[in-house]
């Protein structure tokens, strides 16, 4: 199709889709009027059943824990995929890092200082988020993202990272694999100790609001935090490495 034909086809179809959505959304409850029993029951049973005070985490890591396990594996697969896809083309000349090479810093000194100063607080916030996921807003996903953001700031701010070519950082790779494996293993623990896959009650009930409450939900959050942070760091490192390989080194 020519570009203009394509735009015409799209414009007509978009008008059709807009009409369909209008028809469908007209059948929705008015904004703010929703009262589905599913969510209502979950909010009612979160504390009595599992001593979880965050109903969202309770849903994501317990009642619908298998969704989260699968989503975690999407993150896992995506990180593996990014590494696999970003490896060097066979025809491309590979540049070995020579002794004395200084890779061009990505940022200005001011940004680097600021970045370094931010890292400590970021890590603290991240760990806090992961640990208290069952109690207050936060959890493995949020904490993992913040932790990875901290690491990326550190790397970007540091400028002088030297990654051996073709080797993504081994630690992050192991961490994200271990996080993925950990979630499944915790699910299996549920099967062995409580009779159902991903049953969280085997790890005890606890007092609502305490750090070690809500069965194995906190452990599942830790596994997720490892997976998400590890995966994002692997991805970021892979992109950074590509970029540095493409950059000509400055002789110092």
């Amino acid at each position, binding site marked *: 199709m020519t570009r203009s034909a394509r735009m015409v086809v799209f414009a007509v179809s*978009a008008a059709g889709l807009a009409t369909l959505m209008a028809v469908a959304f007209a059948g929705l409850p008015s904004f703010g009027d929703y009262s589905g029993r599913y969510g209502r029951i979950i909010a009612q049973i979160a504390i009595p059943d599992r001593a979880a005070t965050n109903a969202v985490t309770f849903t994501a890591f317990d009642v619908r*824990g298998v*969704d989260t396990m*699968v989503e975690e594996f999407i993150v896992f697969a995506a990180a593996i*995929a990014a590494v696999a896809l970003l490896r060097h*083309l066979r025809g491309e000349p590979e540049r070995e890092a020579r002794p004395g090479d200084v890779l061009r810093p990505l940022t200005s000194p001011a940004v680097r200082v600021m970045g370094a100063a931010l890292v400590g607080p970021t890590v603290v916030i991240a760990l806090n988020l992961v640990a208290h996921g069952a109690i207050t807003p936060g959890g493995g996903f949020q904490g993992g993202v913040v932790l990875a953001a901290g690491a990326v700031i550190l790397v970007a701010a540091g400028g002088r990272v030297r990654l051996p070519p073709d080797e993504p950082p081994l630690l992050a790779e192991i961490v994200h*694999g271990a996080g993925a494996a950990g979630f499944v293993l915790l699910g299996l623990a549920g099967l062995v100790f409580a009779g159902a896959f991903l049953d969280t009650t085997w790890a005890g009930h606890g007092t609502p609001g305490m750090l070690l409450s809500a069965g194995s939900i906190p452990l599942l959050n830790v596994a997720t935090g490892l997976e998400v942070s590890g995966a994002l760091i692997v991805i970021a490192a892979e992109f950074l490495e590509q970029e540095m390989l493409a950059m000509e080194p400055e002789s110092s």
Partner: protein
Amino acid sequence: MNALAPLIVAVPMLTAALIAVAGRVVGARLAGVLALGATLGCAGLLVAVLVRLHGRIEPVWIGGWHPRDGVALGVSFTLDPLGVGLALFIAVLMALALVYGRGSLDPEPPHVHVLALVFLAGMVGFCLSGDLFNLFVFFELMSVSAFALTAIDVDEGAALEGSLNFAVTNTIGSFLAVIGIALVYARTGALNIAQAGHVFDHGHVDGLVAVALAFIACGFLVKAAVVPFHFWLADAYAVAPAAICIVLAGAMSELGVLGIVRVVFGVFGGPVAAHAEAVRTVLVVAGLATAVLGAVMAYAQDHLKRMLAFVTIGHVGLFLAGVAMLSSAGVGAIAVYVVADGCAKAALFACVGIVQRRLGHVSISALRGAGRDLRWTGAAFVLAAIVSIGLPATGPFLGKALLDDALIHGVGSWAVAIAVGASALTGAVLLSAASCVFLGRGRDEPGAPEYEPLTEPQPSTPVTMWAPVAVLLAAAIAIGVIPGVRHAAHVAGAQATAHGTIVHTVLGDTRAPAVHGSLPAPPAHDWLLSLLTVAIAFALAAYMLRHQRRPLHALRALHSGRVGDYVALLCAGAALFGGAFTLALH
């Protein structure tokens, strides 16, 4: 009790994660063994579950979250013979693909194995899940790993392009599905398929219900590659490694059709049954149009794998037409057809992989006569082609005969005529390609390139490559004669379409009734029809070998390889299906 059912997805997932952790230490060889072991373990678990299911439906509540006062809280795997059987077929295909790919897939570091296992978990989970959102996340899992596996050979520019088109169109399809799921949740307050279906049984049918049905269906139809959502498939399957194609073409597209089954008999069972006639028309038109377009576009191809990709599209169209009958017999017929034809198609892709390895090329005109020495490969390719047309007494024959029956009962014999025509044309395309490559027959194409290998030809075919071909062919043929296949198909079709049973078994904790009986044996006229189809295919192939190929410029120009075009047409398709379903449920 099938409390161990979640292990079916947990085993490949855990193995994938462990390979990722220890892959660099254990090495590629051990990783390959682990991956194959996990796949076989998954298959073994599926056999155990299938045996204990006794042909019934059984929910397994993950995390032990049984329904409370009839409200489903947790996620259920709703095991039924159709889903478990299809999952088993997928696990077996994956095992064969892993064996087949041993020599050809670059295993260092073992990313391929990790992605293959995750892909397997996604597909198998999709077959088992009984929850709408859970279905969607498994769908996403299989998509993401499939994008990566398609492009795993990053040296190929075309592979990157194919994977990008695949990823963008399928991702938009899944967003459409999420919007549909959100609409279902807003109306029913439920995500469990049985629960939502139960609410829809009693509620009134309005625009929201119709659009929800349409959008969720569109998400699955994009994956199934039904016209006009099919463009990505040809681009992706043509470039994916042959080992991956075995699973992609053998099973992944068909899962889109399974998704349609879950939607029209599960979630929207009530509204669809009330307007069966109109819904049937919409789906059967889409299915047959896809079958015809797949066959015609296959005819226009010179690239062997792209030709097979269009053959895949054509066959998916026939599968959709079977499901469109909205009957137990239609779904039962498709259960047989999908498995038998999947084996034949996987064998065809595997043969092309061998051609690629031995001759270093996949263009039909460039390869003219170059395959004379590959006698066994040529024989296997031709046999697979004839079997896939529906050679009497083979598996695809049985599936197709049952499908023809269902079509006659559902919409009339005109649909059978179209299906036969599409099958014959597809078969003719395969046969003429085979006689060109392996026998050197055929027309002189003006400007046909001289044969010159693009990649270094290998002198031999390892046993790991030809053995899977033999197994697949044997399976495709055997399905036609194994006793009990028609009974199994009847049970699978009856349970997957039993909307009331699904609802009561999942929510009411009652034991589902067993199903007895069997689909009828194909009568004599089906044998004649099938022989006729094969004969037409041979005649057409002979004609094609003598005459210039028609260029089909306008149709081919639509398949432009441009993602912008594909997305515009995807929107057009979504608007069309949305409008059609809104009218159908009115």
